[in-house]
């Protein structure tokens, strides 16, 4: 089978595999101390990221969060610079200056993953405004969590997009928790999607474990955005397997058997089964998994082989021109 739809399906599967394997490896090497700082992994939410990004063109924009590894991979980023970034190397996508909370590949429209909760929403509205002013037909998609919808930045960004009918898609990845706090304790509506009503904005709720369903829902939103119909709020119901983060305080949260329940609806497992039921050869999927395994291993090797940034690099990219370097650094 080589029809376009099937290619797309395999690409979705591939990107989900990339995310999962990337995350598994990242977790392992973080535990060994090879990745500094904290680590917020995306495993479990792959269908949400990939489904949403596959509904976009390559030239469209995407803005994300502290849980930053999955989004750029979903948008098509290469793995080497991402893994090198996690290790703090000069070849990292952010030259080692961003790290785990900021994996962002502008070359694929991944405009930034920001670790301040809610802060991506105004940025995405602004990117959409830029598209509108330039008349270039691009849309801007913003990912954020359930917890982020309690921030003023969410409200203001949503409102701006609605008032100006901007070509934006707001994707709330509702994984049920903000750190340790269940959404039910901080979001006083059953579905985050209801919040769209405050902006007269259409909304869609979708099974975030089903990559096709997410793609379909976001495609509808993208179509609306691209044709001048303004923004949409899409809520993907999903789950993260790991703790909120490692190395960011101790999160003593017992989620009971919940994780196991969700693993039964693992997005990769589900999609694999669906593809096979649809006639895709299991061997083809196995091959993809192996290819991805090689890619991820290669990315790690690349990262390990890469050099650290030079000290002077710390003074670059504050402004377009390098800052003067103080004496105590050069001495």
């Amino acid at each position, binding site marked *: 089978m080589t029809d376009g739809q099937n290619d797309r399906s395999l690409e979705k599967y591939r990107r989900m595999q990339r995310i999962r394997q990337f995350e598994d490896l990242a977790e392992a090497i973080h535990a060994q101390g090879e990745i500094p700082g904290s680590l917020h992994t995306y495993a479990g939410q792959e269908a949400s990221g990939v489904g949403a990004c596959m509904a976009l063109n390559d030239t469209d924009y995407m803005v994300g969060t502290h849980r930053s590894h999955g989004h750029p991979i979903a948008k098509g980023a290469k793995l080497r610079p991402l893994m090198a970034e996690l290790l703090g190397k000069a070849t990292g996508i952010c*030259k080692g200056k961003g790290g785990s909370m900021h994996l962002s590949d502008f070359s694929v429209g991944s405009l930034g993953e*920001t670790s301040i909760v809610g802060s991506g929403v105004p940025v995405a509205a602004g*990117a959409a405004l*830029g598209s509108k*002013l330039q008349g270039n037909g691009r849309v801007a998609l913003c990912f954020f969590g359930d917890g982020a919808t309690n921030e003023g930045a969410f409200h203001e960004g949503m409102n*701006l997009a609605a008032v100006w009918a901007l070509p934006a898609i707001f994707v709330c990845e509702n994984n049920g928790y903000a750190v340790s706090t269940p959404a039910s304790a901080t979001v006083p509506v059953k579905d985050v999607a209801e919040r769209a009503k405050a902006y007269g904005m259409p909304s869609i709720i979708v099974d975030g474990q089903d990559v096709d369903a997410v793609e379909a829902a976001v495609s509808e939103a993208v179509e609306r955005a691209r044709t001048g119909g303004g923004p949409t709020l899409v809520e993907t119901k999903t789950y993260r397997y790991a703790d909120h983060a490692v190395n960011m305080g101790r999160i003593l949260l017992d989620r009971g058997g919940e994780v196991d329940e969700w693993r039964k609806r693992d997005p990769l497992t589900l999609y694999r089964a669906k593809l096979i039921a649809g006639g895709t050869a299991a061997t083809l999927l196995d091959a993809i998994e192996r290819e991805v395994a090689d890619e991820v291993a290669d990315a790690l090797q690349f990262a390990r082989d890469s050099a650290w940034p030079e000290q002077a690099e710390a003074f670059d990219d504050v402004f377009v021109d390098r800052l003067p370097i103080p004496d105590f650094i050069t001495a």
Partner: protein
Amino acid sequence: MAKATFLEAIRQAQYEEMSRDERVFIMGEDIICNVFGTTTGFVDAFGTERVRDTPISENGFIGAAGGAAMVGMRPIVDATISSFLYPAMDQIMSIIAKSRYIYGGQARLPLVIRSCLFYGNSNAAQHSDRNYSMFMNVPGLKIMVPSNAYDMKGMLKAAVRDDDPVLCFEDSTCWMSKADLPDDPDFLIPLGKGDIKREGSDVSIIAIGGAVPLALKAANDLAGDGISAEVVDPRSLVPLDKELILRSVRKTGRAITVDPAHQTCSAGSEIAALIAERAFDALRGPVLRVATADTHLPFSPAIEKALYPSPERIAASARQLVGVRQSENA
């Protein structure tokens, strides 16, 4: 070239840059109605896509300016009064100041955020902030505080053309002051270059924004006493023209900073610290600071005015300093 006010200088700078470059647009609250007169005629000239009234949501639209800049636009945000920057601090500090860095140079954020320093006119503590120094403590933001219409025009034009984010603070005590404004469309004053507003040999008065006219007035009065004061206007605080300041102090041997902001952690304090560190050997007396008292600004005109710097306070400081030298020399 014709005499025009500080507000008119802002209008001209914006108008010229919007005419020159399609990527420049302006947004803010009540821009179209044009509350302070800096966007007169803009809707007719540029239309409502490029001249946008925003909802009252400073964090939202200032952040949106950041996002728009990242995709190739060059926004000017009119945030009206500098107190309204607080609700937007999240986007200014975490997104606008830091995005280029955290993404390793992938992002470029050419944008200007304008706001006025609205003090001295009985609008009480919530509306009277002069808060540029807060933004100086975070890297990544260029900061300008012009003191006259000429500098305003040239620097604002330069700010719009700058590829980095610029905060433009407009001292409302200067709004009605006039200067000859060049109409050369490429009249630019680069950010980071200070200016000697008056030459002198006995004492350097480094003054910021609305304090510059006060310092000039003081210098005039001091001349009557035979004291020759040099008035240094940094014009932009980030980057700061350190060499200009240090050169002046090394020449005069005495320094006074004058800042309309509260004294503690002010730009004036920063400059004083710079001088004490890097021009110490030239100093013949303490580095004095004239600033607004570290209390809130009250509404009542009976007690507001005395809290700010004044020509009298500046001149008294200068006399004190020069007196120190005279007694030493005696």
